[in-house]
């Protein structure tokens, strides 16, 4: 991760492809992340958006927050819609109907639209090798419908469908590892990012759209409404997710792992958990369980980094040729 000083605002474009005036909640991490992603993408892009918070807050007829071509159709099919757009752009350019202009195709969805209902379409699109970027904005539950658990909800979190009760301690499964699933498709670029590290996020977007073939970006997006935390803590909680190792920032380029932010000593997970109402019922035992798991997972990623960096170039597969 690059180090930036006080010049930061000058380094970012003032253009807003994702315009203000949308209806996101106060302190929405996802809206912040989308804004940064769009700044990095620029205007030569077509966005396919899944049903979810971002679609609802940005597109109520007759208003739109999108200054770039944008299409929403359904919940689970965004990667497939993006496949169709990419294929159409290729063939229309090849046939001379459209001028060649290297337009990027980007699919956006939440964690439910990605790791649950849209997983098949995403897997298909990555496997077929379409030249597109898929961005998952992960706020760790179905926030748009009222904070229901998804497979991306972390262990112990209370949601409306993993409530805390006399015989329940909230979500009883561990968060699905979507970046690993994406990486298992041997695509050229997979990365994790968070809105609390804006330059890292934007750099990764630029890298992701520059590769030929599918790229996957998993962006942790703090949701004060669903996480039961003060709205002014969005950025701090995002940083704590990274500093505790709960959400490590890394890249997988052609199979080679690289940590984007490597803290010699991770903060205790409770620094992150204690700020959020969804975790307030956790016992010390449960917090210890989470700590053990996070430490082990973080160590595993570091192992991967060591393994794949040693054996450079660790190209698993060349990016696939376009399907058309």
């Amino acid at each position: 991760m690059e180090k930036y000083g006080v010049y930061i605002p000058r380094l970012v474009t003032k253009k807003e492809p994702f315009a203000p005036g949308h209806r996101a909640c106060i302190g929405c991490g996802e809206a912040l992340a989308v804004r940064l992603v769009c700044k990095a993408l620029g205007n030569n892009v077509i966005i396919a958006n899944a049903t979810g918070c971002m679609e609802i807050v940005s597109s109520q007829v007759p208003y739109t927050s999108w200054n770039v071509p944008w299409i929403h159709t359904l919940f689970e099919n965004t990667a497939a819609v993006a496949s169709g757009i990419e294929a159409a752009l290729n063939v229309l350019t090849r046939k001379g109907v459209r001028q060649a202009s290297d337009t990027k195709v980007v699919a956006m969805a939440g964690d439910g639209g990605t790791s649950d209902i849209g997983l098949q379409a995403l897997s298909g699109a990555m496997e077929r090798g379409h030249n597109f970027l898929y961005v998952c904005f992960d706020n760790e539950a179905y926030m748009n419908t009222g904070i229901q658990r998804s497979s991306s909800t972390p262990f112990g979190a209370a949601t409306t469908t993993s409530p805390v009760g006399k015989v329940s301690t909230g979500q009883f499964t561990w968060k699905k590892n979507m970046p690993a699933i994406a990486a298992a498709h041997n695509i050229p670029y997979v990365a994790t990012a968070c809105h609390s590290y804006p330059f890292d996020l934007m750099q990764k977007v630029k890298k992701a759209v520059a590769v030929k073939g599918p790229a996957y970006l998993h962006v942790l997006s703090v949701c004060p409404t669903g996480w039961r935390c003060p709205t002014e803590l969005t950025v701090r909680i995002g940083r704590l997710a990274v500093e505790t190792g709960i959400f490590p920032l890394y890249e997988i380029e052609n199979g080679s792992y690289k940590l984007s932010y490597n803290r010699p000593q991770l903060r205790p997970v409770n620094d992150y958990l204690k700020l959020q109402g969804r975790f307030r019922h956790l016992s010390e035992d449960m917090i210890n369980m989470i700590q053990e798991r996070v430490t082990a997972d973080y160590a595993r990623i570091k192992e991967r980094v060591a393994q794949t960096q040693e054996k450079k170039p660790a190209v698993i597969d060349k990016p696939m040729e376009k399907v058309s």
Partner: protein
Amino acid sequence: MATKKGVEVSIGIGDAVKLANADVVAAYPITPQTHIVEHLAELVAEGELDAAFIPVESEHSAMSACLGSAATGARTFTATAGQGLELMHEVLYVASAMRLPIVMAVANRALSAPLSVWGDHSDVMAVRDTGWIQIFTENGQEVIDNVLCAFRVAEDRQVLLPVMIHLDGFHLSHMIETILFPEQSEVDQFLPPNQYPFPLDPSKPVTMGDFSPPVLYTEARWAQEVNLRASKEVVLQVWKEFGAKFGRNYSPVECYKCENRKVLLLTMGSFTETAMTAIDELEKQGRTDVGLVHLRLWRPFPFEELRQAVKDADVLIVLDRALSYGGPGGPVCSEVKSALYNLKKKPKVVSFVGGMGGRDITVAGFETIVNRGIEIAQKGSEQEFEIFGVRE
């Protein structure tokens, strides 16, 4: 000059899509549609059709990829059948509501359970209200002609709606027939390049598929209804032009020996040809009062043409190849009845359901249906409909 070829109808569809110079084909294999997409994949692989073939991982994604492709301005084709059409179900509504001109061939197939790969119209009836223009065909030539017409209709600036071409699974999809294929130059004259008016394009950004609060939703639905109804004029115009250019004419409701006939049989799809033979046989037996009406345009429903076709008949016997469980029986018959209900003079309508899951109805079978239908019309029946040839 047209080329005459003996070809399996499914292969012919691929050739027609090639003549239409489609840009994107996204499809998932399902019996009995497979030969259509296999042939298209082959045409693309051989470089004979300059298109993107997207071998998607499900029908849901097939139609979703078609949405993306059509919204980008590409001429888009897909094909499916039975369960595949059902898996697409929710996407079909989006295609029509977002005014995306996609053409789809449906090799009509029964629905599970029990699993049946064979033909009937259960799949069509389940997607009846998805807002697509839907055309039924009876033989290979009609399929090929209507695939070409479908692109013209779908992409017409006044229409911009998706079109389904229905062909009966196996009974039609797997038949080898002699089919006339127009020359490329003739097709190019008939079918101009697709010019989708609002494509996804960074130089002119559009927002597509926004969500609508109650204050606007009804208006959006009504606009779609008005648009689908109005598309009939364009369908008629395109068929007229096709007829003038290629000499084969199509109408929303077609008649076979209907004039002055008191008993009419109504069919859809490939069984129509068997029914025609049955009408001829009955004529030979001295029953010269029986004729045949076949519905070609299923959506938008041709109310006026149907009323006109059956206005002088005393009995109308409708054969459905699908069943509305616990309801009126045959879905087509129920629509026919509603189209005639408010008329002062109308035939007695008798409903039969048969030919499901690929079961044949022979010429003799149609004769039985006609005779039984006349009997029911005279004596009445306690049942809403009769199921033909069932073993109880």
